[in-house]
């Protein structure tokens, strides 16, 4: 896998050069995204729970929404070619 043209700037991102993307790279990045999504939206849900006095209503909703959005992000970053 050579580097030439593997990554590119935002302007030239649609010329299908992500084919050569490192698989391990994408795998670990995906895990970071999913953990990040759960943390951000789960955390937001937890805050809303505390604010509204629920014990655990928005936290699970937030975690699920977070994972869903993270998967969108994985697709955007690594799924489109």
């Amino acid at each position, binding site marked *: *896998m*050579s*580097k*030439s043209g*593997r*990554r*590119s*700037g*935002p302007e030239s*991102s*649609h010329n299908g*050069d*992500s084919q050569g993307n*490192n698989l*391990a*790279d994408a795998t*670990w*990045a995906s*895990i*970071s*995204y999913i*953990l*990040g*999504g759960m*943390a*951000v*939206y789960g955390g937001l849900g937890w805050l809303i729970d505390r604010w509204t006095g629920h014990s655990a209503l928005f936290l699970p909703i937030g975690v699920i929404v*977070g994972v869903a*959005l*993270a998967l*969108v*992000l994985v697709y*955007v*970053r690594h799924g489109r070619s």
Partner: protein
Amino acid sequence: MAADVQLASSCHLFDAGCGFPSPGLNIYEFKPIFSIGAFDFTKPMLLALISMLIVIVFFWSAFSRPKLVPRGVQNVGELGYLFVRDQISRETIGKKGDHFVPFLVSIFFFVWIMNVMSIIPFAQFPVTSRIAFPASIVGMVWLTYLYLGIKHQGLVGYFKNMMFPPGLPKWIYVLLAPIEFVSNIIVRPFTLAVRLFANMFAGHMLIVTFSVAAWYLLGFHIGALYSATSFIVVVIMVAFELMIQALQAYIITLLTASYISSSLEAEH
């Protein structure tokens, strides 16, 4: 050290009132070798210093008087260096990455030797199973890729490229940008450190558990069979750990290279 105490106690399965002395977190805690004020110098620190010396002395003797036709230790040193350059740096960053190969070589060999300490007789403790060691290495990696990102893409450009992947409807950025930020700035270093720490922690725990069990199960009758089984598991686990130690050193270096690469140029 606590495992030594457990092994020294002559407590076996068939003795009355003798429970299994299962190893716990105490096997990761050491009495200080010496103390300077509130600072305790412990065995993991000593092993880390020894690992550092091993890496320095090895590469010093390999490259202090380089010959055009490498011989002896220089051959081995070049093999190690070229492995990191060709298999990790060139694969992930490309030619531009040659600049960072010394950093990657240091991380790879330092982490590897600290991991291998797990199965060296008398050392027998993976230094990286104390999270402070992976955490401080990852701290350096974190500062490096943040610095490179800001240097190569500009302060605004770096965060813009990180948080706003191009070609999406505007409203969705509000939802996705926080995930990008958290996963790049917080989750990445966290997982990098925890992956190394947890693997070495678990491996050491397995080896100690089966070693203690081999001693605990020992007896003159059927106990000998139990004990032998447990001992064979120890041998297999040590071989397995030998592989995991190299693999974890490889993975932390590979991901460091990958993070550096994503800082040098904007993600697509």
